């Protein structure tokens, strides 16, 4: 890696940066290049926040309009699978952050190990999500011609009938939001698989591991979206 290829510029002051092959010539130094990449990644994440924000907004408006149906729908979701998935994602966020730390320290095998564990945890999440979706199909809670919802909203022992059309709205939002989130998880798993292979081949060193950091930022954002999806979808009126 540290061959004769030199990128020395007038603003380059430190020896290891002068010989860093990952440093592009239009950046003054490695730190500036890293800051630029990080800024670009954050701009992308902001568009993601707005994208999911639209769905959260739709959810809020309909929940306020049809609270009983949303509560009855929420009570049909599997809270334990949802909670387990929350825990799985939190642990995967920890392994991602430890992967970034390993990359910074130049520990190649530790880095690959954490990346692989992250992918496995992501897949665990998707498998649990798959079992949840199967349950929805079995109970005919998937919006469409076969949708069937006869459950009542249990308001402290008082059984209030629910309009199935309103419950269908809840499950439409449930599938749109968790489906979009699952798609992001699938992309994240693919991303980390590629990064694990590249890390194994020695593409990253303490002077250059920006892709690991930025993929980590993406993964944490997907984690944060789930942190909000879990209480909003699974925890409506559970006390009754």
């Amino acid at each position: 890696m540290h061959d004769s290829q030199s990128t020395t510029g007038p603003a380059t002051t430190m020896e290891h940066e002068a010989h860093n092959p990952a440093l592009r010539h239009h950046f003054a130094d490695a730190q500036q290049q890293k800051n630029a990449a990080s800024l670009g990644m954050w701009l992308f994440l902001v568009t993601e926040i707005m994208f999911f924000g639209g769905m959260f907004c739709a959810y809020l408006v309909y929940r306020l309009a049809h609270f009983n149906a949303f509560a009855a729908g929420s009570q049909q979701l599997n809270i334990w699978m949802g909670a387990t998935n929350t825990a799985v994602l939190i642990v995967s966020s920890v392994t991602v952050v430890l992967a970034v730390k390993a990359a910074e320290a130049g520990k190649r095998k530790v880095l690959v190990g954490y990346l692989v564990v992250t992918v496995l945890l992501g897949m665990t999440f998707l498998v649990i999500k798959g079992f949840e979706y199967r349950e929805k199909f079995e109970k005919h809670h998937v919006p469409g011609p076969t949708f069937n919802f006869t459950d009542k909203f249990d308001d402290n022992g008082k059984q209030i009938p629910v309009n199935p059309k309103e419950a269908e709205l809840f499950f439409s939002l449930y599938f749109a939001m968790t489906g979009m989130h699952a798609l992001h998880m699938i992309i994240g798993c693919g991303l980390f698989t590629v990064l694990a292979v590249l890390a194994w081949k020695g593409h990253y060193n303490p002077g250059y591991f920006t892709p690991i950091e930025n993929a980590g930022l993406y993964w944490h954002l997907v984690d944060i979206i789930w942190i909000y999806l879990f209480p909003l979808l699974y925890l409506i009126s559970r006390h009754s």
Partner: protein
Amino acid sequence: MSEHEEHTTHSQGFYLAIGIGLLVLTATTVGAAFVNLGPFNPIIALLIATIKATLVVLFFMHVKGASEKLTGAVVVSGFFFLAILLSLSLADYLTRSWR
């Protein structure tokens, strides 16, 4: 430069502590959902979710240690526009019943 790089990551124990904190908050939010707190149930749930999200943003995504002020401004502006989206939409839908 190296000073910045040293500050971007924390110790392994610190990350594990934040992770355990997030798991404890998850257990708390599930537990709180089964207690009847009236109108405070969704408020508590969203409050805990926001605490968790803040922990992730500050310590896992390293916004706290970021050297670029511009990155911080982009992050804040993102949540600012999300707040505009949600608050103006709700200002409409929540004030329709008086008609």
